[in-house]
């Protein structure tokens, strides 16, 4: 009988213990699952932050724009008003194509920086990794809403950068351009959020 008594006490104690995780997980405010567009905007913000860090740490500030890259996504036709009237599928497709183009440029920059033993290489690798992750996320979203995949433009990259200075300058131009693209893309994803909900 004392054994029985002990077992019932321990059973009760176990029951109480079992309730503990239930209690701790029962948050008073239920956590909202981030939507796909939330994930996309968060990942874009993360990329923008990494790019800013790279700009701060490694590129040099120059008022002279070298214009080495002729095939970067066009930003001169994007104004604040356009964000009010974005259409879901074409915007997702365009952002995907733009990101693929940036991916090519960054991989080129990574290769050139490695050749010149530039200290920014590890972070550049990180940026490329995060960019690929964003491209995959975006592609999944495109499949969900049946947005077409655009034919990627052919990047025209500078043929040869003989000096470290050229690498720095190119790096600055590319990072600066990409930072602004991320800013735009982040706002575009936020603007598209209600439209995705309407489609799904």
């Amino acid at each position: 009988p004392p054994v029985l008594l002990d077992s019932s006490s321990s059973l009760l104690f176990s029951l109480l213990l079992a309730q503990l995780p239930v209690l701790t997980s029962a948050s008073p405010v239920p956590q909202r699952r981030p939507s796909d567009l939330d994930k996309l905007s968060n990942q874009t913000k993360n990329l923008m932050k990494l790019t800013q860090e790279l700009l701060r740490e490694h590129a040099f500030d120059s008022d002279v724009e070298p214009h080495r890259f002729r095939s970067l996504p066009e930003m001169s036709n994007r104004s604040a008003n356009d964000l009010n009237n974005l259409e879901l599928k074409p915007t997702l497709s365009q952002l995907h194509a733009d990101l693929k183009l940036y991916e090519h440029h960054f991989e080129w920059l990574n290769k050139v920086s490695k050749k010149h033993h530039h200290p920014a290489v590890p972070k550049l690798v990180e940026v490329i990794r995060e960019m690929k992750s964003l491209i995959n996320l975006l592609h999944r979203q495109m499949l969900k809403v049946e947005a077409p995949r655009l034919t990627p433009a052919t990047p025209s990259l500078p043929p040869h950068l003989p000096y470290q200075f050229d690498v720095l300058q190119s790096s600055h131009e590319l990072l600066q351009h990409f930072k602004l693209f991320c800013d735009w893309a982040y706002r575009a994803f936020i603007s598209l959020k209600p439209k995705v909900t309407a489609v799904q």
Partner: protein
Amino acid sequence: MPGLLSSPVYLTVVWFLSWSLLPSCAQIWTDEVSDVQYGRLESNVTLACGKSQIRTPVVWHLNHSSALPWHKVTSDGALVLLHVDHSAQGNYSCYDNDGLLLHSVKLRLGRPPGLLSISCQVPNYTHVRCSWVESVKTFLPAKYNASFRGNGQMWAPCVLDIVRKRCDIDHPAFWQAMHTLRITETNALGSETTYGQFRLHELLKPNPPESVLVKEIEGYPKRLNVFWNIPSSWPQHDAFPLLFQIRYRPQGSIYWSEIYSEESPAIIFDALAGHVHQVQVRARDEVNSESQWSEWTPLLLVRPWQVYTTPDPAEAFLPEERDPDYYFPITPKPETSTPKSHNPVPDDKGNLGLVILLVLFSVVILTTILSLIFVVWVKQRRHDHMTKQELTSMVKMKTMPI
């Protein structure tokens, strides 16, 4: 002939001739009356006595007076003013020996334009306003031409307001690394073009938040509720979120406390009970961390809720004389605000959560107590049962024959 005069062809010819000749006559008169010559300050200025070469001696007058600034008259009757200053400006006339007016000219002095000092304000993503200050005071009327472009774009006009010396660009292509403003200033003595390069993302500076209001929270002597509206010039669109910074301190303290919020209202949880606080709010673009914070809103003075009923006229908050922007959102609490009103209203999700947690905890405690009572009861029952069995066996043992 009368028939010809009244014909439509004749009338048309007369109308055309009168239309084409009249302006030119007016031009000639204007030239005769007010022929203006411009000269450069601190230089020598030559005024010719008419267009033809004059051999006879001439006499020059300035504003009908024979007193002239430092000068010489050349053999052909031209007046050379030496190292002119502003006093040399006026109406010059040359006469022949018989006092007959040969020519008159108005002299205006100044300088050719110099480079401009340009600055741009960017209060949002749809509007850029650039203004300029002249580095050289020209003293002469000028014409301006301003245009704006992003990297590799076509020049677009920047809409001028010459009186205020500024120009406006609506809906610029904002997401470009660098923008250039080109302003050409032209006056009678020359022309100068100034180029200014700007990074709009770094210049972006919203206007301060509007309609800021700070309220006490009844029942909470250490809390303040801060409300505001986004600047009216900022786009009301999800794509342009703002981050707000609220700073506050007890009046008299030199140390500010700060909190950040993405939306109004924000609650200050650690106000100093019973003290009047100064509160200010400012805004910045939430996405673009390189943009600038807006100016702070004017100081607001407010005291957190307190157990206090008698209104004291001496307690009325007087504005500090050095700052005329003080604003007083406090209305004296009516006497009905009694100290017993301690019922904290669950005014946010946090408090509601706490209540739910407390209820759950009470249920657990109750279950535990009930279970323990049950266990004790079971134990007691078993114990009684055992005692009974022991007694029975003892009785049995006693009755057994040895």
